[in-house]
């Protein structure tokens, strides 16, 4: 379909957005748009639709996010690109764009519109005019050199103020000098120094942001590599003070969408890979291990390079699985013996190498690893297979590869599906943990009863208060976990820090291990402590989360039991539990009532549960899970106070 037709469809469909299926089909039209102009038009056409409109027919299909945009030039267009990119991924952005060149004021005034808007992401877009406005019109290199420190100091002071005022993530771009400025300096010695000064400025900006818990720097030079992408359109720069070209503004919007994706827990976790003509050229069943195209020729190098990148992803915590129509002996032989196969048999957490329909295999992998379909990316070269998966499993992201392997890497990475703010120790060893999980599943089949099996695992759970080691992982759990997430509040590291520093909050992380190995930190409990007018103490479990990897072992029961035990030791009179339903967590709607809590109140958005302490409930809670060995909260409290 031509882009114009997609736009016509969008324009027509927006009127019937309250009808079932319409918002999703609008998302599909948006996802088909490629050229910058269409993306801008589409984003503009949809500017007046709110999150309520998008979710009117089907609740929770679109997730809201608030993005504040500040700049030293006119970059209003960013919002339209952002809207198009986000809506295509099921994210509905609410955008605030500050007036022209108001960024300093917006950052420095604690009552500014930006802060009142309460953004989740603040995007600060800057161009060379942050220098130029401080320079005489006939500036020479020495002028540039003498202004650069003051620009840096003013900027970072404003950012300091921002980080004190606001916990929302701040994204800023590196500064690029336009070629006209560079060409206006005619001697190469000065040109070299100008280049060095600019890069030193950017290096200092990057170093400053490395120290910030919730800051990200977008590397403008990287964005400028895309073809065709110019830094600016001189005409728009002169007449409209639009100092970045439209494709560059679109690229910045795309980066912002990637940030929104991980903040909303939409990061992809698992790659489901085809083999023939995906990981190597040719069909191994016909050509044999020695006959496939992998390494040793330009085309083979392209496939080897694709495997290498997949391995890099795997080392950073992306789970790899196989879904191939083959005899397993054939594919095994490639991963075991082919000298140019970067991927080894042990890199895959799950394999479906068989003659089953691929969408059924994906379902099997999803169940086996307990990873939601919407966190999977299926990669295949066949139109037929890709269409089947699209049709039967619309929530799986499908990457249909072309017949040119040299483009595979770019296709796999450009959408930033796997991006996250900061990897933790957990990520680097995730592959191992999923493999252990596979081993557990096999072990389970040996036992007659679930109880025997659970006893055989020798599960140990340890609770600890959040500290600088666990906080990055805790923040990550709030961002990645969707099923066992009772109130689904996504948090940045800085927000977790604030709670753990507060004397009114207990942030308790829990780790799990068994005979197959450690699963690391798998969950967290956020408890707010309040005193009523009778000075009675209450615990409010504002949120409790647990990774789906350790479901069905009773770990959550043991943890809640220990929280209750601790509450009684602390003379707490009541524990309140809160549950907010989402599309993903309905499995745990009755979590609190199953654990002896009484349902108090339900207002559609949140259900409140209550447990009177001292009702000796805890014995029954812990006695429900005799196969778990868990430490007491009191001991950690003492050790942390000591």
């Amino acid at each position, binding site marked *: 379909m031509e882009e114009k037709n997609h*736009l016509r469809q969008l*324009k027509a469909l927006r009127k019937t957005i309250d009808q079932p299926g319409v918002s999703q089909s609008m998302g599909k039209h948006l996802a088909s748009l490629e050229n910058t*102009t269409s993306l*801008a*038009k589409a984003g*503009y*056409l949809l*500017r007046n639709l709110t999150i309520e409109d998008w979710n009117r027919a089907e609740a929770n299909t679109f997730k809201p996010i608030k993005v504040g945009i500040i700049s030293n030039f*006119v970059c*209003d*267009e960013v919002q339209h690109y952002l809207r198009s990119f986000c809506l295509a991924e099921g994210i509905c952005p609410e955008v605030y764009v500050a007036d022209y060149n108001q960024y300093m004021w917006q950052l420095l005034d604690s009552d500014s519109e930006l802060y009142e808007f309460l953004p989740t992401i603040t995007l600060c877009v800057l161009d060379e005019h942050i220098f130029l406005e401080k320079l005489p019109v006939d500036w020479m290199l020495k002028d540039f050199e003498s202004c650069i420190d003051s620009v840096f100091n003013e900027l970072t002071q404003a950012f300091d103020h921002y980080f004190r005022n606001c916990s929302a993530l701040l994204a800023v771009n590196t500064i690029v000098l336009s070629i006209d400025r560079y060409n206006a300096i005619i001697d190469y010695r000065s040109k070299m120094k100008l280049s060095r000064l600019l890069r030193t400025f950017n290096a200092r900006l990057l170093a400053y942001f490395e120290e910030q818990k919730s800051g990200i720097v977008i590397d403008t030079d990287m964005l400028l590599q895309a073809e065709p992408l110019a830094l600016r*359109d001189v*005409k*728009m720069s*002169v*007449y*409209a003070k*639009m100092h970045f070209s*439209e494709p560059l503004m679109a690229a910045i919007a795309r980066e912002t969408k990637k940030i929104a994706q991980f903040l909303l827990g939409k990061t992809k976790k698992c790659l489901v890979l085809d083999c023939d003509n995906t990981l190597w050229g040719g069909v191994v069943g016909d050509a044999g291990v020695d006959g496939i195209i992998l390494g040793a020729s330009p085309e083979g190098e392209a496939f080897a390079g694709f495997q290498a990148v997949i391995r890099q992803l795997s080392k950073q915590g992306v789970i790899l699985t196989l879904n191939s129509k083959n005899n397993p002996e054939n594919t095994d032989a490639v991963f075991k013996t082919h000298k140019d196969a970067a991927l080894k048999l042990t890199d895959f957490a799950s394999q479906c190498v068989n003659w089953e329909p691929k969408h059924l295999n994906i379902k099997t992998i999803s169940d086996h690893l307990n990873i939601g379909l919407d966190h999977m990316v299926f990669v295949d070269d066949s139109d037929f297979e890709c269409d089947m998966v699209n049709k039967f499993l619309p929530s799986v992201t499908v990457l249909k590869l072309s017949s040119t392997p040299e483009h595979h890497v770019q296709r796999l990475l450009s959408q930033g599906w796997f991006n996250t703010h900061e990897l933790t120790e957990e990520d680097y060893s995730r592959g191992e943990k999923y493999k252990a999980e596979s081993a557990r599943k096999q072990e389970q089949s040996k036992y007659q009863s679930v109880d025997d099996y659970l006893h055989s695992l020798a599960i140990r759970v340890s609770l600890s208060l959040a500290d600088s080691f666990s906080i990055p992982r805790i923040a990550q759990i709030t961002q990645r976990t969707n099923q066992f997430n009772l109130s689904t509040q996504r948090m940045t590291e800085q927000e977790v820090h604030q709670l753990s520093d507060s004397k009114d909050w207990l942030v308790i992380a829990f780790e799990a291990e068994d005979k197959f190995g450690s699963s690391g930190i798998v969950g967290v409990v956020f408890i707010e402590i309040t005193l009523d007018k009778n000075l009675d103490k209450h615990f409010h479990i504002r949120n409790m989360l647990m990774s789906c990897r350790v479901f069905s072992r009773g770990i959550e029961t043991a943890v809640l039991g220990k929280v209750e035990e601790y509450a009684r030791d602390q003379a707490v009179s009541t524990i309140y539990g809160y549950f907010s339903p989402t599309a993903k967590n309905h499995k745990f709607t009755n979590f609190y009532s199953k654990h002896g809590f009484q349902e108090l109140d339900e207002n559609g958005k949140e259900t409140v549960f209550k447990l009177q302490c001292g009702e000796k409930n805890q014995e029954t809670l812990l006695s429900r899970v005799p196969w778990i060995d868990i430490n007491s909260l009191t001991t950690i409290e003492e050790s942390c106070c000591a």
Partner: protein
Amino acid sequence: MLELEDLIEIIDTVIDSETTLEAETVFETIPEWDSVNAMRLFTQLEKEVGKPISMKAYLKTKTIGDVFGLLTSE
């Protein structure tokens, strides 16, 4: 070759107005018309006709017909 009706469709998509647009429509009378939309329209027109348009001449136009004249001159 760009026809007047093509131009009107482009403007309609870019400005997204309830107003009925025709050759005689004066931009200033379209409620959604502002400097940002004027610039958005400009860049999209340049892409549509595939050649540079004089910003100076564009800023002098008053009606849709004027813009059509500008795009189809030479």
